[in-house]
């Protein structure tokens, strides 16, 4: 069941990525895309496909994948269906890092300043959560994360208040809404390794999460080092989600919803949720990015994060209601 699910999700992701290549400002035919991918000299189509769309779509898949995976791991680790990277302050920390880069003008000095600052912010937030919750249980970790999250967002809004020019305010707001517009291979090269490293750490937690489902004490009695699992999960999330937030801005909701979408299909073993949740997250973000490119209308287009929440929230509500009715 699980293997069939994983392969069909993987196939779905490949179809979504391939389909995504066609659409945008310029609509391309399959023959043009094939030509662009195989040709050795530069044409308009090859520039658009290879240098503009491919990096953007790959980033969408990476960002969605790590958000889904991190959501699944954190929901397992904290045994809380509302857990997601945003809950532990990691998204907020990354946002703060990026906003500092924009506010102090580092972003204007070099284009990769925002990603680098964001990654630093995410790691700092995760480290702070771990230190604050040291010795405490799951609840302590959630509370520490929530506190760090509030603090980081307060600092973000403080920066908005103090922003030196309308330009900085505008930049910060656009960034907070999340976007993959015009991301290049630079961004893939920057975020990719961190996202993959984060994913590897997160996948290492699978077995322990199954044991943790029985409770922390039971898991410890089974020989699971709870502190180590926690470290893996948080550090992996900070690396992966930090890098993702660094290049795409804050993209909410995917981490929350992706595990819930696949859980009914794989049963409730936390480790079985991980890979399907990652693939589902990747599909969601690839399709959402496609939608923001197609549904632009007269204005500048819709922010990626905004679009996902707008479409995702009603769907999630429906899912919650359906689950509640079933369990009554």
């Amino acid at each position, binding site marked *: 069941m699980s293997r069939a699910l994983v392969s069909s999700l993987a196939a779905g992701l490949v179809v979504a990525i391939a389909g995504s290549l066609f659409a945008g*400002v310029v609509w391309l035919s399959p023959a043009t895309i094939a030509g662009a991918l195989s040709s050795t000299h530069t044409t*308009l189509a090859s*520039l658009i496909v290879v240098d*503009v769309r491919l990096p953007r779509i790959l980033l969408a898949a990476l960002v969605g994948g790590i958000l889904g995976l991190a959501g699944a791991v954190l929901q397992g680790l904290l045994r809380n269906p509302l857990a997601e990277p945003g809950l532990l302050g990691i998204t907020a920390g990354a946002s703060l890092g990026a906003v500092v880069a924009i506010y102090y003008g580092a972003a204007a000095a070099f284009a990769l300043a925002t990603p680098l600052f964001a990654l630093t912010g995410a790691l700092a937030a995760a480290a702070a959560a771990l230190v604050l919750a040291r010795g405490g249980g799951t609840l302590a970790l959630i509370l520490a994360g929530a506190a760090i999250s509030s603090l980081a967002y307060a600092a973000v809004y403080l920066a908005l208040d103090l922003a030196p*020019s309308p330009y900085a305010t505008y930049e910060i707001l*656009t960034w907070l809404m999340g976007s993959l*517009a015009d991301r290049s*291979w*630079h961004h893939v090269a920057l975020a990719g390794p961190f996202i993959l490293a984060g994913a590897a750490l997160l996948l290492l937690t699978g077995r322990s999460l199954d044991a943790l489902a029985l409770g922390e004490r039971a898991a410890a009695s089974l020989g699971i080092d709870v502190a180590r699992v926690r470290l893996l999960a948080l550090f992996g999330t900070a690396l992966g989600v930090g890098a993702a937030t660094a290049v795409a801005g804050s993209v909410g909701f995917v981490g929350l919803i992706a595990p819930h979408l696949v859980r009914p299909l794989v049963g409730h073993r936390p480790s079985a949720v991980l890979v399907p949740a990652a693939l589902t997250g990747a599909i969601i973000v690839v399709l959402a990015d496609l939608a923001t490119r197609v549904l632009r209308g007269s204005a500048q287009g819709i922010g990626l994060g905004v679009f996902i929440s707008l479409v995702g929230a009603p769907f999630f509500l429906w899912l919650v209601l359906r689950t509640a009715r079933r369990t009554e």
Partner: protein
Amino acid sequence: MRSAVAAIALLLATGAAAAPVRVMSISECTDQLVLALVPPARIVSVTWLSRDPTTSLMAHAAGQVGVNHGLAEEVLRDHPDLVVADSFAAPTTRALLHRLNVPMIEVASPETIGAIREATRQIARAVGALPRGAMLLARMDRTFADLAADPPLGVRVVAWGGGGFGASRGSLFDALLTAAGATNVAPDAGRGGPDVERLLVAAPTLLVMGADAAPDLHANVAAHPVVRRWQGRSVTVPQAHYFCGTPFIGDAALALRRQLHAAVPR
């Protein structure tokens, strides 16, 4: 004789090659300068924002050329000879265009009269329109000289522009007020303009409001009973006059001077 003709022909040829034929602007404020400097036939597109007369002085001219949304795909599709951008164009887009070796100039968004001169000259040079740029700047300077020749009004004003634009020190709106001969008595009010208490303390003779088609949060303050004490003692400036820095700020200052003259209670 023949060699002289050849030399002139060569000069013409290199001159033509030096000027980019088709220009594309991907920021609203560079749109204004490109539309002012380059004939529409040579403009591929400007941003869709420049068709909105609320903030764009060149809305009419923008209607005669194409529009873009500041995206790299649009630039690649239209392959202009030159892209003009400022810091409002997304940094990711500018970085991507650099990577793809798209010919592009980036200007700083002008916030002062000096910066307007610099940006106008920079774009004029890049699009091969130096004489037109010099003409626009000379006209601006002439208008300022005329304004300066008149005794300054010294009328005490407080301004807000709506949409997050105020006349804080160093802003274009502040420069416009000063050029028109007004004294900005709340230059530290921050973006968006002063709050009601500051307004009372500053006690200006006139309020200068930005005409703003879209309602915003600041409209609530304008409806405050205290603010309404200035009803009949206010002038309204189109937001487009200080939204972007252009050489037309001279004309804007002249228009504001006339309004102030008419509104100052005697």
